[in-house]
């Protein structure tokens, strides 16, 4: 949100288990409807991911990020 306020097009990615916390931050920041992209298991909320896991996740998330930033989601 702070990047957006600074004029940088942004989209936040949060883990599904942390959705409630992310929404709470959005609410106290005055943006209760702020939209997120979410990641779910098997990617865990906090982890030391292998290179393969990172690449797999990037492959899934990159098109979603692009779509969100270009208004095509």
């Amino acid at each position, binding site marked *: 949100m702070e990047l957006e306020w600074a004029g940088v097009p942004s989209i936040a990615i949060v883990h599904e288990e942390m959705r409630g916390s992310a929404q709470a931050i959005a609410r106290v920041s005055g943006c209760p409807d702020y939209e997120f992209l979410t990641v779910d298991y098997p990617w865990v*909320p906090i*982890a030391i991911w292998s290179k393969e896991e990172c690449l797999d996740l990037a492959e899934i998330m990159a098109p979603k990020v692009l779509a969100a930033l270009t208004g095509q989601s």
Partner: protein
Amino acid sequence: MTTAPQHAYDSYEALVEDYFEKGWTDGLPIMPPTPEKVAAFLERAGLSGDEVLGTVPTREVTCTAQQAAANAVMAGCLPEYFPTVVAAVRAHLHPKGNCHSTTGTLSGAAQAVIINGPIRNELGVASRAGCFGPGFRANATIGRALRLVIRNVCRGIPGFLDRASYSTPARYSFCFGENEEASEWEPLHVQRGLAPEQSAVTVHSLMKMVEATDFTSRNAEGVCDTLVTNIRANGIAGDSWLGEDGNVVIVVGHEHHRFFNEEGWSKADIQQYLWPRLNAPATSATDRMARIGKPEGILIVAAGGAGMGASWLLLPHLALAITEPIS
């Protein structure tokens, strides 16, 4: 029923200040143990005031239900919590609960109160996110009630019979529930011989709490190996008085529990995997034997919230974990 001394005060503030002055609190304010409230607690548990819940022979202490009720009121409990407090006091004062040693030790051992069965949800005992910490009345006050009994009845007063070098914040209160809904795992009290519908308390004396973090394992064996490494880094000496029945409690966190669920590991599977590895001979000062007499002495409890790839190890002081049904 035993008649306790009564004191009259002009105000709540005067009462609290006098209790501080007399050394009857843990350093925090208390609720006034009025005769009416104490009677209501006893009635809720179906106990007469002079019923003996346990003794500490070394200290010439006998703990009655009335004394426990007064301390439960002071801790901020609701009357419906009192049967759970009674079970916790009975468990702690079991001879093998070893009150004298576990509350007097230089190590500052604390008591973990673990609640199982339907009463967890009836009382609102937290077993998921934040369950070790503040914010939950049942957890906070049931654990505190046991600690006030230890102080005010069992004479576990710092500098007197409590000789802890540092003590621990867990001595204010440490109570949580098992997250029985997290999986098909057999709850702790069922593993210890009680029926699933029977609510129960297990009191475990812990010398040390160790967080076993593991953000890299992606399977059950990997998590178990991390548990072994962390327990063996501390070691468990065992004790001839406790014999083969010694315990360690492993609180398995949400992110680790997933792997056991996915691979169909039961608690018994975990116990069988861990036991020989814990009891293997030491190889260095940081890889020590963790002497647990039987696989079932490894008590597995599911609790905690999502996020951290961590489980908690509640390493024992000189006592057995005692499970008592809640009447």
